[in-house]
């Protein structure tokens, strides 16, 4: 089994990120949050022997269909193994701030499983074993914050009223990474 990950971002200002930043700073009182960026992550699991073949198939999928991304709207990158994409993919500039990545996945991933079904039945991609869809939030937090990582972790999960936002733990899993940690993952987890 080989996994690839496609990270997709809008090629235009993302209204969702703006709403999240506005809510975090004005309503939750998390004024140390400087920037929010939203990225979609598609993790594809192939029954293939080589990473090259998996990457080639993923790129073919991106070239011939708009299932994962549309070139008229999105920018994306494909990776398999430790990533080499710039931090700026999630945040415009880390500068005087810490960047974190919060990956949110529905525990019953209906978007991912629908996509997998289309790939197999409609596109005849028999080697696709699974598709997992996640929303990956990039957070830029001021170093002035008492504990930036703790703040990112709080923002990640809504446990009590106004404590967090990005995931509801009753149907979503949230994982917090430093940007470097996310990219350094061996292969795609």
């Amino acid at each position, binding site marked *: 089994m080989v996994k690839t990950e496609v990270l997709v971002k809008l090629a235009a200002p993302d*209204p*969702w990120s703006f*709403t*999240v930043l506005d*809510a975090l700073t004005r*309503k*939750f009182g998390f004024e140390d949050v400087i920037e929010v960026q939203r990225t979609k992550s598609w993790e594809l699991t192939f029954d293939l022997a080589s990473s090259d073949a998996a990457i080639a198939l993923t790129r073919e999928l991106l070239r011939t269909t708009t299932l994962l991304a549309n070139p008229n709207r999105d920018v994306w990158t494909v990776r398999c193994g430790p990533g080499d994409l710039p931090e700026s993919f999630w945040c415009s500039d880390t500068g005087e701030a810490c960047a974190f990545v919060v990956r949110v996945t*529905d525990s*019953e991933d*209906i*978007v991912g499983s*629908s996509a997998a079904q289309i790939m197999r039945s409609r596109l005849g991609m028999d080697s696709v074993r699974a598709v997992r869809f996640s929303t990956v939030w990039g957070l830029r937090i001021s170093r002035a914050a008492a504990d930036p990582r703790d703040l990112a972790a709080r923002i990640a999960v*809504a*446990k*009590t*009223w*106004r404590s967090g*936002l*990005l995931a*509801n*733990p*009753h*149907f*979503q899993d949230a994982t917090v990474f430093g940007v470097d940690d996310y990219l350094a993952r061996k292969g795609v987890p």
Partner: protein
Amino acid sequence: MNPRIGIIQFPGVNCEYETARALESVGMSASILRWNVAPAMIPDFDGFVLPGGFSYEDRVRAGAVAASDDVMETLMAAAADGKPILGICNGAQVLIESGLVPGLTGGRIDLALAPNKGMGRDGYYSNWVYVKVGPDPGRSFAAYGLKEGDILPVPIAHSQGRFTSAESGLFDTLEAESQIVLKYCKADGSAPGAFPDDPNGSERSAAAICNASGNVVAMMPHPERSTWLRQVPADIDSVWAARRNAGLASRAALEGEGPGAGIFRSMRAYIERKP
């Protein structure tokens, strides 16, 4: 004096006007309040409705951003006062995301309204479904005037309507405490089985859940879209449809009450109940 209901207009909701008409049709008065009015300017309402729609376009998660708005503090105080608060569809999502429902542990978010499952695709689903009134209807304001086992055809229209929880045993508690006010069912009232009678895969087929005190209700179906008989499809399998067809070409009959009016009537009766 007629009970006075405040309808909270979160940015992006879109059912506030017909909800006001529905409340008025059963003899209550309704005022639409912009979400950001100063708390001091909010009159002393007898109850509140959080209407359907797409507050903040469901960004992040349906209801999640609106649940953090300041007006929630007013609603939390009203809930603690025992005033009825009805969240319809997006309003239900706001109540869940703020922890007001089921409200078992102060301030904790114990439930989610997760994306629909079971229809073989993701996204929005709108249809007419049947819901059945659960046991001890008098314990929540929403079924106060209804009878256990009453079957109501009502429309649903949502992407995220699946009541669920990671808390083990939570639904046993809700069931034991009769907090599941309405459940999806087949036309004859039997268990819904699979999609489409079960439209979203909700735990215990829950369509509406109330808090422990019964004065805050999160309801996914839209009673304001079945408040008048003319809103009920003529061709669904229900005594309500038969009633509509019997009244064919009679406007008086079609302007009569539909199944959803029972929810608003219940709210009024609850407010006017003798202590």
